[in-house]
């Protein structure tokens, strides 16, 4: 009997080992697949995007990299004739718009998060959390349509009130508004998690020292959650930089710039890529992949900078 049991155990252990190994291989495989997609995407975009710079583009001449990165008009000369493309002003526009959107979305998002995590009664907090999650799940084209149908006329009339004539509301301001609405749920949801994970002891310590709840919330809880709030900003900026559909509906796709005035039309890297993509051919098509490379580099640099800043300010320290 004893022997049988031992044998059984042995078999069991062997079997467990096999299962363990299989799962491990399986996990490794799926990791490899998802990781390889990144490589495939980067290689594909880079491969297509580099063509305008190294080939002579069917006689149009190769695109000058320096001019491409600094020029203040999208295309100098006629399409299909000229190769003088440029995205200099668009890079500036894109960063400017992302920065402004964050400027609006961060305070609102963080304060909302604070309200949900610390102030609201439990039932209300649960409800609000669901609402935020729903907002985050709305596809960008819906935001674009809302921007198109509601925000554009609103901006048009607002500008008219100021005596400024806008192009039907397609402005920097409209783009910033749409984007800040879009990144608000991301910012709120992540900040809320960060605020909730601040340990109760720190908060109680502050209260015990005689600080009011509001003082504690702003000076202790928020500064302890800094790191998480920064993460929400990073993801928010990522969405703002990468959004194409909604932006191209409200930006006006300016072909020169940069545009800093709130009531000027503008263009972002993504909206420029999208414009005419389905209709055009040759260099005018390939160049959009080059813009894609620029976009990826811009996002990498922005995220790198924000991550660096996060490490600088991110430690939980309660003064």
């Amino acid at each position: 009997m004893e022997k049988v049991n031992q044998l059984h155990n042995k078999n069991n252990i062997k079997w467990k080992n096999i299962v363990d190994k299989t799962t491990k291989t399986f996990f490794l495989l799926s990791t490899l697949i998802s990781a390889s997609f990144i490589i495939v995407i980067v290689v594909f975009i880079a491969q297509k995007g580099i063509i305008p710079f190294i080939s002579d583009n069917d006689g149009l001449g190769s695109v000058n990299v320096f001019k491409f990165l600094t020029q203040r008009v999208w295309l100098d000369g006629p399409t299909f004739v000229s190769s003088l493309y440029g995205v200099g002003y668009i890079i500036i526009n894109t960063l400017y718009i992302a920065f402004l959107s964050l400027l609006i979305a961060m305070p609102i998002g963080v304060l909302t998060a604070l309200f949900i995590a610390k102030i609201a009664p439990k039932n209300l907090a649960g409800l609000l959390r669901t609402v935020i999650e729903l907002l985050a799940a709305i596809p960008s084209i819906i935001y674009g349509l809302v921007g198109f149908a509601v925000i554009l006329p609103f901006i048009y009339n607002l500008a008219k009130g100021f005596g400024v004539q806008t192009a039907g509301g397609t402005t920097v301001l409209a783009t910033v508004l749409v984007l800040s609405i879009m990144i608000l749920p991301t910012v709120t949801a992540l900040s809320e998690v960060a605020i909730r994970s601040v340990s109760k002891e720190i908060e109680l310590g502050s209260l015990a020292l005689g600080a009011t709840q509001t003082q504690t919330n702003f000076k202790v809880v928020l500064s302890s959650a800094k790191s998480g709030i920064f993460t929400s900003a990073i993801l928010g900026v990522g969405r703002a930089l990468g959004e194409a559909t909604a932006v191209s509906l409200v930006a006006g796709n300016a072909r020169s710039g940069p545009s800093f005035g709130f009531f000027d039309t503008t263009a972002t890297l993504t909206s420029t890529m999208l414009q005419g993509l389905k209709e055009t051919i040759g260099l005018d098509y390939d160049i959009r992949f080059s813009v894609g490379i620029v976009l990826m580099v811009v996002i990498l640099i922005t995220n790198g900078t924000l991550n660096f800043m996060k490490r600088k300010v991110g430690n939980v320290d309660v003064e």
Partner: protein
Amino acid sequence: MKKILFMALTVLITLSLAACGGTSEEDWDSSSNIQVYTRDTSSGTRSGFMSGIDFGEAEADDSVLVDGFVIKDNTGILSSMATDEFGIGYISLASLDNTVKGLSFEGVEPNIANVINNTYGLKRPINYVIRDLDDYANDTEKEITLAFIAFLETSDGADIITNKGAVPLTSTETWDDISDQYSVCDADNTGVIIKFGGSDSIQKIAEALTADFAPRCGNFTPEHDHTGSSDGYKRTQGSEKDGDNYKHVGFASRPFKNTEVGTVGTQGQLAWDAIVAIVHLNNEVDNVTAEELKKIYSGEYTTWNELLD
């Protein structure tokens, strides 16, 4: 905290009220600047419009346009004109609805009747040309080509053309009425390749037509290679008709030139591509000329006053 919330709520309410309040009707101020809207340089409507107002250099070149123009697609321009009282744009006639004002061109109202009776000027013909009737590799190819041309003039063909935004010529018969005359379509034509080419701006129309027609005619294989209007004649009856790029059917989105006259019964028109300049309903302008449109798009006219004077 309650105070902050209350303030935030107040701001929100004020904003939404402002949004509603702004839409009130006011007198249209003709001293305002003209806001120009255009399609992207890759758009066929843009090249049709620019050549129609004699501003050909703007077909593919943004830099000759007035500063501050806005690029949108067909629907984008249409809905912008519902908001922007001082904007002007152009769309294909098929998209025109009563949310905007379609401007008369050279005194002629933009509607389908005026396009078909050839009085409305801002349009271009969509023509076809086929190979000379004695110049086919075999009878099957010839018969299918002729059947396709006949199909273009049926109401089934007209429906497809309308769906793609162009204006077909008047047609009374359906394909079923005339299919008896084209016995080739009863046979199995799998593997027979018919080549289509010419104008690239009407490629979508041509592809929709062949996609619908191939199953009606023995499932022949349509091959599309659209490279420009000039190649329509050149590759069917012109210098490249026997080359590797030869075509059975060529299209041209402009009238055929004197040098492009083919043999009898090989050329014709299938539709009009009509474009209409549109403005906001409040706009006092009702009629424009080609010259005025060119002056607007090139930036010579910057306010509506200059147009009304």
